[in-house]
């Protein structure tokens, strides 16, 4: 029996060992991309973008992610482990804007440059800890929130009741989208936010939370969800309540399933941010940093409103 354990362990280690990219040529720098999770199409697209860029540029790419999007501690462990393997550069999508700071400081200590992707680091916390990042690549989430708000204002003709599904509080991306959205709502007193609750970025919670919201506020005319996953969950809840098409649903991310939903009309709009481009730009800029070239410290990738007119899936990606 002891042998069985040993064989299983040995076997699985050897099996996984073989999975390693052949790293015979050591002159290729290794760039690591640490994602929040891989249980989300948004991050899978990002991984794809990073992979394509690394192939084109001839660098080695390692992609790692925690099992759950909320698990900052696991993400920190992954970063600590990658530091041990002496990767040349780290690209991180922080699972917590403040919580990631100690990990960045650890990378700084051994001289590994850090690029932050998608979710901003909390600047005061970074400064207080004496941490340094080489650059930030992400979309303009504040603007995205505004675009979503303007769309809803226009669709409701300046008057009505709306609900919001928030992401995890403390995540810069969700907070910025919310801020942008609320800014527009504040300028349009005819529109009232009757409910604003978190569904923790998750699809199933989008369903249950919005189902409950609908119970309390059946008069809701529009919903802004800070991510498409939550929006798609809410779409199911709307369909279960027999209100398909009666509530304007606006999501964020514009991954392919959401684009399909917009085509079908179950969602009215979504905000496109290209995680594929983020992954690609992150790897490109990491290489610039490694070569000692100067990069723009804050690279903002634009957002785009996706409605029925332009919702065709971007199959090229």
């Amino acid at each position, binding site marked *: 029996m002891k042998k*069985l354990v040993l064989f299983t362990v040995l076997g699985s280690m050897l099996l996984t060992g073989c999975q390693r990219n052949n790293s015979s040529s050591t002159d290729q720098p290794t760039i690591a991309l640490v994602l929040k999770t891989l249980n989300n199409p948004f991050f899978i697209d990002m991984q794809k973008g990073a992979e394509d860029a690394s192939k084109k540029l001839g660098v080695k790419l390692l992609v790692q992610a925690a099992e759950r999007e909320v698990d900052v501690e696991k993400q920190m462990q992954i970063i600590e482990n990658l530091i041990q393997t002496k990767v040349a550069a780290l690209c991180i999508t922080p699972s917590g804007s403040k919580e990631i700071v100690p990990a960045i400081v650890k990378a700084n200590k051994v001289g590994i440059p850090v690029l932050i992707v998608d979710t901003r680091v909390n600047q005061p916390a970074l400064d207080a800890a004496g941490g340094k990042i080489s650059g930030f690549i992400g979309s303009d989430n504040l603007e995205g929130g505004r675009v979503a708000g303007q769309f809803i204002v226009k669709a409701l003709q300046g008057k009505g009741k709306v609900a919001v599904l928030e992401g995890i509080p403390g995540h810069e991306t969700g907070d910025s989208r919310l801020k942008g959205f609320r800014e527009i709502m504040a300028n349009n007193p005819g529109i009232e936010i009757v409910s604003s609750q978190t569904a923790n970025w998750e699809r199933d919670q989008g369903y249950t939370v919005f189902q409950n919201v609908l119970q309390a506020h059946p008069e809701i005319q529009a919903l802004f969800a800070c991510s498409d996953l939550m929006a798609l969950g809410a779409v199911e809840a709307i369909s279960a309540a027999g209100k398909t098409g009666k509530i304007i649903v606006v999501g964020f991310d514009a991954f392919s399933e959401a684009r399909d939903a917009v085509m079908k009309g179950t969602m009215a709009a979504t905000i496109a941010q290209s995680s594929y481009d983020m992954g690609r730009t992150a790897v490109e800029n990491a290489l610039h940093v490694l070569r000692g070239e100067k990069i723009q410290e804050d690279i903002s990738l634009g957002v785009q409103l996706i409605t029925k007119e332009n919702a065709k899936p971007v199959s090229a990606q």
Partner: protein
Amino acid sequence: MKTRYLLQVYGRQFGTLFGLIALSIVLWILTPHFMTVSNLLNVAQQTAIVAIIAAGMTFVIITAGIDLSVGSVLAFSGVVMATLLLGGLPLGLALLSGVGTGLFCGLINGLLISVGRLPPFIATLGMMSVARGAALVFTEGRPVSGFSDSFRQIAVGEVLRIPAPVVIMLAVYLIAHFVLTRTKLGRYTYAIGGNEEAAILSGVNVRLYRTLVYGLCGGLSGLAAIILTARLNSAQPIAGIMYELDAIAAVVIGGTSLIGGEGTVFGTLIGALIMGVLRNGLTLLGVSSFVQQIVIGSVIIVAVLFDMAWKTNRK
């Protein structure tokens, strides 16, 4: 005679230890980054939080119980301590409040189980939700962060070059081992799990000791919360999700039977280290995070298969 006795009592632990060593040797061969002082300290540090929770869980599982609430209790203890600390409470008192919150939740678990006669699974499942909700209500869902350097020393400080969390973990295990093998609480823990009827008949206050065991488990979750908060420089109300499963896995890999009545804390420590070394090693090797879950799950299953076979052989 003596060796035979030792082999019988500790043989199972040698098996687990052997597994840990074998795993380490394999990793040593496969990657140059594994067997370095800095990486081994790194693994020990990463293991500390789950290992400390698992020490308490070992007591609970030896009584044939289970505690599903540890992750939520950790989150609640963390935010309570963090809020008080930022509110100006002296460091020592704030730390006590963290452990105290965990202890309080644990004692409630214990009372629900021993006096309220609820099955441990149900009582702690309820607490899992209550403590998580309490943590969210307490913070309005936002992380609490920004602590003094003296507090952060709990995570970044070193004693003789050994990271402070590792020192705390070792201290917890030495004390837990002492309590389990040399005190009344320890002996009764085995007695309750081994044969509750017999324990009652021989005059053991089962209600009291069972409550204490859950209190201990909660208190250790509070201690783990302090380290986690210092490590991330932030106390999150959503921290510790699924930690109960990591802790239970460590206990089970370490040879403690879920039926109760037997087990050791050092087995649990080795179990926690096996999980930590696996996660670390798989990342060093660049294995995809999807495959990692398969490997970790398989190791848990194989370890328990091995445990059952060992016990059958012995009979």
